[in-house]
């Protein structure tokens, strides 16, 4: 999943509202740049095919 940079502003505004994070307009360029980098990293991971039964790393022990 990668969001084109020109659509990130909309995503950031919606996410800030959903997360109740007050976002100063001055912070937006840096947040956008960081989110773009993080989503690109996430896309590198997400494109890697793994079997359905692949277990996530952390195991909760009751």
């Amino acid at each position, binding site marked *: *999943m990668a969001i084109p940079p020109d659509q990130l502003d909309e*995503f*950031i505004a919606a*996410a*800030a509202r959903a*997360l*109740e*994070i*007050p*976002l*100063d307009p001055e*912070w937006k360029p*840096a*947040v*956008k740049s*960081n*989110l773009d*980098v*993080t*989503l690109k*990293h*996430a896309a*590198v*991971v*997400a494109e*890697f095919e*793994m079997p359905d039964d*692949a*277990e*996530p*790393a*952390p195991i909760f022990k009751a």
Partner: protein
Amino acid sequence: MDVSQPWATAAEIAAAVTSGRTSALAVTEAALARITELNPTLNAFTAVTAQRARTRAGAIDALRGKRPPGPLAGVPFAVKNLFDIAGLATVAGSKINRAHPPAPKDSPLIERLEAAGAVLVGALNMGEYAYDFTGENIHDGPSRNPHDLARMTGGSSGGSGGAVAGGLVPIALGSDTNGSIRVPSSLCGIFGLKPTYGRLTRARSFPFVASLDHLGPFARSVRDLALAYDVMQGPDADDPACAQRATEPATPVLERGIEGLRIAVAGGYFRQGAFPEALKAIDLVAKALGAVEEIEIPQAHRARAAAYVITATEGAALHLDRLRKQARDFDPAVRDRLIAGAMVPSTLVVKAQKFRRWYRERVLELFTRCDVILAPATPCTAPKIGQQNFMLGGAELPVRANMGLYTQPISFIGLPVVAVPVPLQPLPIGVQIITAPWREDIALRVAYALEQMGAVAAPRPSLKPSLKVPA
């Protein structure tokens, strides 16, 4: 050996205090004097616990003739300021946490070091909330590299790197989520141990990323590193990730040498983007060890990407309430990364955790073919303080996020690593000695052998209190 001089090792100090050739109090006073003299230049300490240290040293001296004072008798040490120190707020490099009440108890790692006779002398500077590879801090000012005051210590355990490299203390503790012990070790030219995930308790330390957080020691000699590591081992019910595993001392096996060990050099990803000095360092270490086989760690770039995602999102979850209520009190560089992390869809984080298990299994297979993997610790020597970007593999990238290029794929699956300093001129640089989980003993043996050969060493900087701090 005058153990009051700044380059005395912890082992030398403990031997002198135990034999009565000097007192713990004399060693403590010498360390406090050196801190007073040089901390205005290095900015490594954010708090000096002088009275506590004198009381503790006096108690160790009072044991003389009654019972052994411990393997670290009278050894001064300091901790990154995310460790709880009774009576001080655990600031974790932040402005926000300064309003926290004083910690009621010490971190168990401080307790264990002091039970072995060591003397806590203070808390150390760090990047805010450990989300940093530079050692810069907007609230406390940057830690300064003892080898060149205009340069970074690396971070986030920047004060730990500066304090040990500058001879203020022989041992310091830090944390390493993505490289925060190994990066400052590399840039400051000292030894650092990031143990196996779950080896050392993280109880009563301020967290960052529960999936990836480790604590560990820094030192100027391998023996000191092993001594500190050994006394800190052991289970602790207060850290859910701490393994129920008996202590496995490394000090007794340090001198076993490298015969019979299969040592390989990480190729591919771990050579891409490296500056010539990083390649020179790894080649020197490989040659000293007779390591000729190159090994490919599969999907290392993806491991780094997954560590990046887990860090951003778990870090954001930890700080979400503070981002809502106190966003203006963060270091802006940390705040903006955390806000971005909060916005990453959770499905992508679960993918990263699934990949983590897949990658772990592939890398563990490599350890059926070799015992040790060598890799650079950082892509370059210490950048200038304030430097925002560097050229990496042909692309201009931020220093703050990318100094951990080679450390992140390793801590991502919790492998133990000793970072060893190669004393290149004009600046040192580190190499990672990586082993299978729970084999810190092998990594320390290799580091010790390299130290005995003279291939690695912590260089001693010339520091004088009159040195001008660059503007």
